[in-house]
Every structure is written in C-alpha cells, then in structure tokens.
C-alpha cells in the first residue's frame, strides 16, 4: 500500500507528465517556428510548376490547414490534437495522400523490429560476455587489444561508422549488397529463397548496429567488472577460498550486470529511434527509410507520428526499468 502511494503513483504521474510534455513540444514546434507550413507547401507546389485557379488555391489552403490541424485558436487546435491522438489517429500522410500515417508506420515497423530486436540482443549478449571477460582478465594482452579497438569504434557517430562500413564492404571489397531490404523485384513470401535474400541484405546494417552497440556494451561491462572486482565482497570471497567460477558468476557478474540490465531496457526503448540513420544509410525499408522519405517530401504528420512513437517507446522502457529493478537488486527492494 505504501509502495503504491509512495512509489508507484508518483512514478506513473511522472511518466504521463513526460509524455505530455514531449507531445506538447511536438505540437508546439510547427506553431512556434516562423513559417507557416501551409504556405510553405503551397510555395513548394508552385515551385514544382503547378498552376492553379485562385479558387482552387483557396480550397487547397483550407484543406491543408485542416489536415495540419491548424484551424481555430491554439487552444482549439491543442484540444483537437489530443482528441485525434486519443483515437490513435496521427492524421494522413502528405506524400502518399491519403494513406493514414498509422498504416505507413505499420508496414515499416516489422522491418525495424526484426532488425533492431536481433541486433540489440546480439550486441548486448556478445558485448557483455566479452566485456565481462576482458574486465576480469584486464591485465591480459587480448583484453587490452579489444579495449583499444573499442576506443576507436566507440566515438564514431552512427552515420560515419555505417557509411564507412558500406564503403568498405559494398564498394571496395563488394561482399554485400549496397542497398535495400531485399533484391529489387523479389516478391515477399515465406520461401527460403526470399528469407535468404532478406537476411543477406540485412547483414551490413545489422553488422553496423552490432559492432557499434557491442563496443558500447563491451566498454561499460568491462568497467563495471573491473570496479566490482576490487569491491571488498569479492576480495573477501577470495580470502575465503571460494572457487573462481563461483566468484566470477555469483559475485562479479551478478553485481556488474545490474546496470547493464537497465541499459538493455533503455536500448529496447530506443528501438523506434535508434536505427533511423542506419536504415537510411543502407536503404533498409523500416521506420528510418520512412522518415527519410517524409523529410524529403516535407511530410510533417508522418515525422510527428514517428516522433510520438519514439517518445512513448523510450519513456515506457524507463518506466519498466524503474518498476522492475527491485526484482534484480535486493538493496532497492527492501528500502
């Protein structure tokens, strides 16, 4: 009961407050920026050379204003905005008019989920195992070598790293296909040939995510293990002649992995926003590619939809971490 009142309810309140704030920012940005998206649209249409009757122009302006949800006072707009969101409606896409944003996102999400769930899991598991070993044997040569490699990879921004991989493997040595989620003209089916084709195309984007994510996990895990290794309870177990395998698994890893569990949840929360750049570099048909097309076509509703999805994803992940962490750490559980 006190747990509910003193912990759960404030935490849930904070959760909704952050989402509210994020969504409000998304609402405000187009309204606070110094140009009118409708007039910009019109300008771009004119720029493309379409000529319209003045009457038809007024109609388009009215339609666009309505589509952007720009009718009435800000307060009216804000209310309408929430009503639409409450119905799960992100509006319609401009560049694939009149497909609803929801539908576009729904077709892209499986690609992103498949890529990100696998790469996040692999980079977490591999990074932590190697990082843990490297931390425990931090004086060994191979540990130092791996550390040096991670020191080079870690600082690179996604774009530069992914692009360097693409240059190297798709252009210089030509081991992997350059772009796309599957070969051009391949028909989606459950056949082995199609699945193989998809996997083949996803190797490079997956590799870029695994290496970069793995390097981060490696570095943090190595540091945690090194720090845990010098804790007095580990020293004490050694003084008590506890066998090394027990010390490694139950004393060092069990304690060092705690913050990494949080890290895993956070990176799962970034599934909708973490790989946008990777997908763009490799033309992988997930949310990132969708975002890219939205940017090129000025499709504000679509970008807003992806952004809202990301906000909810990350905040929910953090909420889940906060609520489940006591199960992993008895110190938190009993306080």
């Amino acid at each position, binding site marked *: 009961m006190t747990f509910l009142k003193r912990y759960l309810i404030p935490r849930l309140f904070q959760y909704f407050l952050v989402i509210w704030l994020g969504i409000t920012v998304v609402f405000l940005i187009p309204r606070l920026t110094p140009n009118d998206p409708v007039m910009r649209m019109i300008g771009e249409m004119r720029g493309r050379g379409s000529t319209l009757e003045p009457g038809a122009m007024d109609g388009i302006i009215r339609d666009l204003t309505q589509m952007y949800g720009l009718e009435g006072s800000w307060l009216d707009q804000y209310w309408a905005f929430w009503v639409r969101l409450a119905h799960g409606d992100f509006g319609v896409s401009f560049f694939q008019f009149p497909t609803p944003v929801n539908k576009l996102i729904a077709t892209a999400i499986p690609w992103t989920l498949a890529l990100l769930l696998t790469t996040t899991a692999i980079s977490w598991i591999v990074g932590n195992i190697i990082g843990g070993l490297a931390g425990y044997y931090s004086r060994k040569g191979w540990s130092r070598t791996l550390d040096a490699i991670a020191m080079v990879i870690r600082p690179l921004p996604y774009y530069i790293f992914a692009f360097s991989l693409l240059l190297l493997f798709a252009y210089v040595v030509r081991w992997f296909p350059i772009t796309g989620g599957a070969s051009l003209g391949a028909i989606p089916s459950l056949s082995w040939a199609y699945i193989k084709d998809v996997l083949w195309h996803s190797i490079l984007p997956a590799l870029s995510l695994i290496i970069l994510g793995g390097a981060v996990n490696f570095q943090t895990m190595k540091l945690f293990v*090194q720090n845990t290794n010098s804790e007095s309870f580990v020293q004490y177990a050694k003084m008590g002649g506890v066998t090394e395998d027990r010390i490694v698994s139950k004393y060092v890893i069990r304690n060092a992995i705690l913050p990494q569990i949080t890290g895993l949840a956070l990176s799962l929360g970034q599934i909708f926003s973490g790989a946008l750049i990777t997908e763009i570099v490799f033309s992988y048909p997930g949310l990132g590619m969708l975002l890219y097309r939205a940017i090129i076509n000025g499709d504000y509703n679509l970008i807003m939809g992806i952004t809202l999805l990301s906000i909810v994803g990350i905040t929910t992940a953090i909420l889940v971490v906060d609520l489940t962490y006591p199960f992993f750490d008895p110190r938190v559980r009993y306080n």
Partner: protein
Amino acid sequence: MKILRDLFRDYRFTFSFSVLVIIVALALLSFVSPYDPTLWNVVPKDMKPSVEHWLGTDSNGQDIFWQATFAVRNSLIISLIAGLVSRFIAILVGMVAGYKGGWVDRVMMFISDSLLVIPLFLIFVMLAMLVRQFLNLVVLGLMLAVFGWAWDARVIRSVILSLRERDFTNTAILSGTGTVKLVINEYMPFAMPLIFSNLINNIAWAIGLEITLAILGLVNLNIPTLGTMLNWALFYQSILLGRWWWILTPVILSLFLFIALYWLSTSISEYLDPRTRIQRVGA
C-alpha cells in the same frame, strides 16, 4: 606544466592533441584560401588529386582541399557555439538547482530529465524542416545548444549537492560569503575539470548531429561543413563514379576528428579520476 607532461605520457592524449592541432591549422588555412567557398565552377570539375589541386576538385567545380578547410572551420564554429552556450546553460541550471534545492530543483530536473528522454534527433529533424532557410552557423549552433545541456546540468547539480554538504560551505556561509561568490570561487574549481571533459564530448555530439542533419539535407547546403560536403559528394554519386578523393576527404576528416575528441576527453578524465589513476599505477 607538469600536468601537460603527465598527459603526454598517455599515447591517446598525444594522438588527440596532434590531430586537433592539425585540424585547427586546417581550419585557420581557410582564411588564406584563394577561392570563395560559395562560388561554383571556379576550378575544372572532377579532377583527381594533383600538384595544383592537392585533394582534387568536385563536381561543383570547387577545390576540395580548400573547401575542406572551410568545412572544418564551419563545423568547429557550429560545435563550439553549441558546446559553449549549452555549457553556460548547464552550469547555470545545475548550480541553481543544486544550490537552491526545493521546487526550483524539482522543476529544473524535470525539464532536464524530459530532454534526456525525448528523442532529440527527431525533434531536430522537425525543427530543421521548418526553419531550414534560416539555418546559418549561429542558429544551428544555438539550436543544438538549447537541447544539449540536460545531462551536464545533472552532473553539475550532483557535484554541487555533494560540495554543499562539505564543511567549507558552512565556513564560507558563516563568514559571510555571498552565494554568487561562493559558487564561483569555491564550487567552480571543483566542477571545472568535469565541465571541460563534458565540453569536448558535447562538441563531438554537435559535429555528429550537424553531419547527420546535413546528410538528410536539413541544413543550408551552400555553407560548407563536413556534413554538407558529404551531402554533395553523395548527391553527385561520387562513389559510383569512382571519385573517391571527394567522398573520402570528409569521411576521413570526421573519423580522425571524432576519435581525437573522444580520446582527448577520456585521457583527461582518466587523468583527473584518482581511481583510474591508481589502477594505472597498479598495472
């Protein structure tokens, strides 16, 4: 002097320092460039590297070497504006929140927590889409600064909180030292090394975001930066057409710049952290 000598013992610091000196020198060279970076077709197009054009020329008819000097300079200007302004906000917020406490602290930390949670990249995309034509170096730098202070404000706040508990704070207050003076004279020296290493990280973050936004065509492509250089090289299919000198220039410059900045910040913060210092000694 001794600090510098100690730092240079770390190969990472030596490497970063040398790379950054070269990169800054490159940026300074832009002031004596024979070409105007905004003009096209000032040199023959698509020339391979030669004595005349060290890094060749691009499809816009610009000299890549001199274009790169401007690109480095502008990327550094954007990131320095972003880094310094966001540092100012972070210090202000962190110090006020840490020192005042109470509801001021709670509100400020709620805002910074929210900033940490919101996918900033997407927010930048939305902003940049709407204000693209106003995006000069300063505006872009300020935009990154406005959103880039949250983490460091938290760090500074926690430093202040721990310092506030120490004896010298009470001594200073009892002897009538004013708040501002206390914060500047007593607290800043403690927070300074941390702020500096965060500044470097923030600069790297800003350069990276600029590149990403530029690739997506969300900045003013007529201002040469590392990002817009890449964008043009991609736009003209320089890879497919085998113009490696064009695409490789910004890519290699960025690789070295990011590694140098990261190594600089880790070598400095490791030097400052007594725990790792002991570890290093013990090794």
